[in-house]
């Protein structure tokens, strides 16, 4: 990336996403966890998508963190991630569906985790 590229305001969202405001899929929550597939070729990816891949190859992060580290709006980040999921570069780990884990159990785990920090 050229110098100054990351300065706030220099990223033009609608250039980055080829003019699209919405991702190809609507499955991203701010806390959807995403991971990069290590074996996918990066050749042919736009610089922004390459940036997402370079970040995500290090391990799991939430959609919000990807947006935060790359200094991109969440809406743009979702578009990029949607494309990368479509092309098999990124896999997601969605928030566990409520049916699989009762909210009471989840809340208890949150409570236990918080109390352990006191």
């Amino acid at each position, binding site marked *: 990336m050229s110098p100054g590229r*990351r*300065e*706030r305001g220099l990223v*033009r*969202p*609608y250039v980055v996403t080829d003019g699209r*405001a919405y991702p190809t899929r609507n499955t991203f*929550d*701010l*806390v*959807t*966890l995403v991971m990069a597939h290590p074996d996918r070729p990066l050749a042919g990816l736009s610089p922004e998508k390459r*940036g997402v891949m*370079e*970040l995500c*190859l*290090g*391990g*799991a*992060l*939430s959609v*919000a*963190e990807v*947006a*935060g*580290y*790359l*200094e*991109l*709006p*969440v*809406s743009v980040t979702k578009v990029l991630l949607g494309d990368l999921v479509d092309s098999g570069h990124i896999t997601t*780990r969605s*928030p*566990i569906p409520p049916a699989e*884990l009762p*909210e*009471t159990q*989840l*809340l*208890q*785990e*949150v*409570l*236990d*985790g*918080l*109390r*352990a*920090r*006191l």
Partner: protein
Amino acid sequence: MDSALASERAVYLPGTVRTAVKLLVVGHFAVGKTTFVGSLSEIRPLRTEETMTQAGALVDDLAGSERKTTTTVAMDFGRLTLSDSLVLYLFGTPGQLRFTRLWKDMTQGAMGALVLADTRRLEQSFPVMSVLEEQGLPYAVAVNRFEGAPVFAEEEIREALDLLPETPLVVCDARNRISSTRALISLVQYLQSLHTRTPQENV
């Protein structure tokens, strides 16, 4: 700092984490949201921005000839890994984002909210409390103690904020990790009580 590669700054989640949950930290300007999130977060809090038209729609044509009034809305957030499998995200945001996509993103799937309040301007907490009520998002209130701010009895604050009897009201110091953790615990206990309706059993 910002020139460093994002991948070098990033603090990744343990590979065992399977579930991510979120809570909101809301309140008016300068009430201590950023401070609160920063005290609790295990990562340096991150910030993300979205450019909106005045009406709240995303700007859809930055190069367009038509001049639109745009504003930038921001939220900051932090992370707490609570166990091998569970991570909690805290999103700190002002309430006037209610018509924005960012607000929708934040509230969707959120378990609840902690409303920070300042006794020097309690009335400024009303707008955000109304938004939470409209959206059916349960909340607890934490009075963030500022030096020189008036100290009121709990009952007086409850009355001034027009709180329901069951809404938790705690005092916290957003700069202090333990105090902030306790405030979050009060919120989560309350959320639990809404499910079980027998809060004593779970304490």
